């Protein structure tokens, strides 16, 4: 992930565009994992970048700081959405209709149920644990995780270990229900 954190354009006029171009694709991949729906992912990222537009001082910060902020805000918004059980149900069915390429016809229902179990288990974790877990298993480094969660680098390991323990317990419970 660190390789994409190249320096974006520094002119004021182009800065927002550069940040959007640089970070939208990777944020899309991350948030899509949480929501499993292209439209909801795009809506979440629209809200994220609208918030960024209201933060001119933040935009002028170095790229790694901005990307950490974007990850933090977009994940918060995404998990706020997923906490609603009603939305989760609608999302599952919409995913079946709009995202057929992500699933094989033969095992679509079973896999969708599994994915919903994963998302619900993530949503039950404390905020920092679930974000740490998702970021790590989406390929982010300990440095990036620490920056996103605003914690010391040395705290990432313990947070991750606790998150994986808690997730495993909750996930097995969902899977057996």
């Amino acid at each position, binding site marked *: 992930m660190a390789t994409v954190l190249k320096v974006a354009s520094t002119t004021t006029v182009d800065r927002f565009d550069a940040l*959007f*171009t640089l970070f*939208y*694709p990777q944020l*899309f*991949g991350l948030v*899509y*994992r*949480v929501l*499993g729906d*292209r439209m*909801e*992912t*795009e*809506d979440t*990222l*629209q*809200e994220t970048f*609208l918030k960024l*537009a*209201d933060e001119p001082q933040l935009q002028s910060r170095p790229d790694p700081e901005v990307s950490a902020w974007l990850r933090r805000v977009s994940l918060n918004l995404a998990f706020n959405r997923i906490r609603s059980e009603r939305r989760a*149900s*609608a*999302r599952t*069915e*919409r995913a079946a*209709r*709009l*995202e057929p390429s*992500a*699933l094989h016809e033969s095992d679509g229902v079973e*896999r969708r149920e*599994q*994915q919903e*179990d*994963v*998302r619900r*288990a*993530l949503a039950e974790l404390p905020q920092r644990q679930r974000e740490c*877990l*998702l970021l*790590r*298993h*989406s390929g982010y*480094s300990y440095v990036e995780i620490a920056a996103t969660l605003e914690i010391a680098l*040395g*705290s*990432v*390991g*313990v947070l*991750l*270990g*606790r*998150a*994986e*323990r808690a*997730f*495993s317990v909750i*996930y*097995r419970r969902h899977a057996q229900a």
Partner: protein
Amino acid sequence: MTINSVVCPDLGRWRAWLDNADGTARFDDHLASCPACQRAVADLRQDAATAGAAIASLPVHAVSKAEHDLARERLTWRLREPTAIRRSAPLRRSTTGLRVAAGSVAAAVLVSVIVAFTPEGRTAAAAFLAQFRSRQVVAIEVSPQSQEAIMRTFSSLNDLGAVQSPRGGMQAAPGQVTVADAGRLIGFPVQTPDPAVLPAGLDRTPRVQVIPAGQMRFTFDKAKAQRYLQSRGQPQVNLPDKFNGASLVVSTPAAAMLEYSSRDSHQSLIIGQAGEIVVDVQGQVTLDEMRDFLLGLPGLPKSATDQLRQIKSWTQTLPVPVPIDKVNWTSVNFQGRHQGLLLNDNSGLGSVAIWNDGGHMLAVAGSLKANDLKVVADSLAVR
């Protein structure tokens, strides 16, 4: 736990050790000789494997360039809304098709300002003239670069004078109304589709809302314009004195929106109906002068202005900008008699139909294939 007088690494260090993220080698010897740590690491490894496999089961989606560009364009439109409205009105998603339609209509209103000043309109110079009425539609193909240039140019209107929206623009009226009430509010009977041709799964009873009429007035301010043009290095673009105080007025009519949704709200079909968009000029400026000035604004793409100039019945034709990188379009007959546009989102997720029926603008948008959407559009009638 201790062994051989060495303090065991804590949970966090062992977890980082599993990821080779924390000076890993120095713990290897300890692990080999510490049963307690061996059990702890085994548990950590198993939990990490469980969590990793579970999260890996979540599908990934690489965003395409078209999706990226569309999202950027949509963000640009939202950023143009006043901050207070943006913050108080959370984004509401309907369909990709509706998004395309909304963007097209909004852009069309802006572009129609330019249409009002094409060469055919050079005859009048009265104090108040109704210059343009949207009696038919035509596609104007625009590239991504042209879209950006057009939006950038129109955004500079704020720097040439004052923009006012005294009636609040496109805010939806609160609450639902009946189809009959909607007809009374917009001034003509609302057409509804044949329930038999609606896609399976959609409720046959629509949710009906009315968007009130709006108006945008732009008034030139010579001093402000000159300051702006000079700051942009365009001192040669001269705004004559008589432009000072001259106004463009774009009036958007009240619109009825019928939304047919499925029970779980993940699919919907939107049918919009409205009267005409009207563009007027107020002041002592001739159309030639106004046209020359607006078409000479820095940055307006020649490809777009050339297409606008080629519209023969310009005073009655609403140009609909079609982003050629995202939307296919065809010119077709609706309801067997009205020429209009059928737009098909390249992503395959949505289509839009736009046409004019006796002075009334109609649009149908939804997550259907274009041919299926046209069947719904053709079935519209006053029932």
